[in-house]
């Protein structure tokens, strides 16, 4: 600690250069904070206490392949299954194709398997009694200024009605209130319509379910139940894959994009550039201070102390910029989530992200400081003082 003022003064010896480098580091770690929030949000999707009790069954081939609705009754017979429901992806958009809505055509008992979604009894009754009725998430209703009683036009990006039109009209009968904060970002943005209305209206479905959701009686028996469900359609033209909800969500997202790989690739490129930049700054800083480092060694600082001071300077530079960058990401994340009207529900910067961030700061700091620190350690006093 007693060397801190010396390290600090050395770091800011060339203020403009150090500040510009710091700005780059802040930007890199701000990006890290935001992208890690995206990665965490995707990784945590489907992770909830209730989700652990649910299995999802989809086509073994692809998530866009559908399954016969007749499977429902057979799945319900599997020992360990408490209840079964099913749903189809509707692919709705409101007013503009860019306003995509998480819209599912669901079986009548769908809400029973999702206690994360709370709907008042009156509204649920109204939904059940109205063929064109829909339930909409609280956030979604807020986003489009919808209220119960509104009649809304929706465009399906996939399914036309029997006349060939992809324009559908629905009546909002209730609002879905999310009861689980962790998954609220998803349920808040949902629109649920009746599977029977969907199936009767579009000629494309004809008694098919997109996927099944099963609630098991015993979480510990989930593996066995999953295998038994998949055995029902083994060697058929509609073989299934049953997974826990978490695994299914992860696999579904992976089919869309490998977020982890994308985030890692972007951050790899950013940090590689940062290493070149910070490394160059440190090399220049040490080269300029050759005479001063020689004086330190002259008055008795050991080579190891000089090495440690240069490394500490490099780490300090990274930690200063890095902490500032991640700290800036903290208030930005809720702003981005809010700005997206709930479409993006980014996880806050948690202890895991901080730990990873600080580890990166230390590792990059040590890496970029290694070469200049080594040069400083091996500096020959006599040559350096003679400016040779």
């Amino acid at each position, binding site marked *: 600690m007693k060397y801190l003022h*010396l390290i600090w003064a050395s770091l800011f010896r060339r203020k403009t250069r150090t500040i510009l480098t710091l700005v780059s580091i802040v930007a890199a770690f701000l990006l890290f904070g935001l992208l890690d929030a995206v990665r965490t949000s995707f990784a945590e999707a489907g992770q909830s206490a209730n989700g652990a009790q649910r299995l999802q069954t989809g086509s073994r081939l692809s998530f866009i392949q559908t399954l016969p609705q007749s499977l429902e009754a057979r799945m319900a017979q599997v020992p360990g299954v408490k209840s079964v429901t099913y749903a189809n992806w509707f692919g709705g958009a409101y007013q503009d194709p860019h306003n995509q809505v998480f819209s599912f055509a669901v079986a009548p008992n769908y809400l029973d398997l999702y206690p994360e979604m709370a709907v008042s009894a009156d509204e649920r009754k109204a939904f059940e009694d109205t063929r064109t009725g829909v339930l909409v998430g609280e956030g979604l209703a807020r986003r489009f200024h919808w209220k119960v009683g509104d009649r809304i036009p929706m465009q399906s990006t996939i399914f036309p009605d029997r006349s060939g039109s992809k324009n559908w009209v629905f009546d909002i009968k209730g609002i879905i209130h999310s009861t689980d904060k962790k998954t609220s970002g998803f349920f808040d943005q949902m629109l649920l319509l009746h599977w029977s209305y969907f199936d009767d209206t579009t000629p494309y479905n004809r008694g098919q379910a997109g996927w099944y959701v099963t609630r098991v009686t015993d979480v510990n028996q989930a593996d066995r139940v999953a295998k038994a469900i998949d055995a029902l359609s083994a060697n058929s033209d509609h073989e299934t894959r049953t997974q826990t909800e978490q695994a299914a969500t992860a696999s579904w997202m992976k089919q869309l994009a490998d977020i982890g790989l994308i985030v890692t690739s972007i951050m790899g490129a950013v940090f590689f550039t940062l290493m070149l930049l910070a490394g160059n700054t440190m090399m220049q800083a040490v080269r300029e201070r050759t005479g001063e480092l020689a004086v330190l060694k002259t008055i008795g600082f050991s080579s190891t102390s000089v090495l440690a001071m240069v490394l500490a300077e490099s780490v300090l530079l990274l930690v200063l910029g890095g902490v500032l960058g991640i700290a800036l990401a903290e208030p930005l994340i809720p702003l981005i989530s809010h700005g997206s009207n709930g479409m993006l529900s980014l996880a806050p910067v948690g202890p895991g992200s901080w730990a990873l961030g600080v580890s990166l700061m230390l590792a990059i700091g040590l890496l970029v400081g290694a070469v200049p620190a080594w040069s400083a350690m091996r500096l020959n006093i006599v040559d350096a003082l003679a400016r040779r």
Partner: protein
Amino acid sequence: MGKLIEIRDLSKVYERGKQKVEVLHHIDLEVAEGDFVALMGPSGSGKTTLLNLIGGLDLPSGGSISVGGQRIDQLGAGALAKWRAAKVGFVFQFYNLMPMLSAQRNVELPLLLTKLSAGERRKRAAIALELVGLADRASHKPTELSGGQQQRVSIARAIVSDPTLLVCDEPTGDLDRQSAQDVLALLRALNRDHGKTIVMVTHDPKAAEYANHTLHLDKGTLVEQATA
């Protein structure tokens, strides 16, 4: 007085590419404790090389150097650094102060290597600055000081850890006449009043007059020993 520096058959060879250059040839020298010695000679005569060897900044190619009874030519790099920190103060021609630190912080630098508390370090640095007449300039950065003042700060840095030996390489080489006289008077006071042994390299015969003895080096050999 006893001998502080004892040099026997000292030689130094530098390798410049494939060429070997013998800078010092079989030098024998003794400097008494409390002495003030000026080293003179033409450029390339080996004055700074000899000074660097006495100050433990470099190692000889042959012979021995004892300072205060310690064979410093036999010390490893780490031990030599510790020895320098404890026993030697350095004054350079171009002051070599840290430009980003105040005069006070510059003077404190050698004390960072001790176990003294921050308060004690500040106190000792203030005393050293007082001794060189710059107590009122403690918070100034080197760029805010004149050349003479910077050299006095560097002398304060050299004496702050109370070393036995001061090695000065052209301490007045970059100063005007008046500042040079002030610095030399200060070095003489440190020698006379505080008992510091000083070995000073200089080109300037007037500067050498402040020393008790003047040694002349020519082509790496001591050629003459004069007494002031």
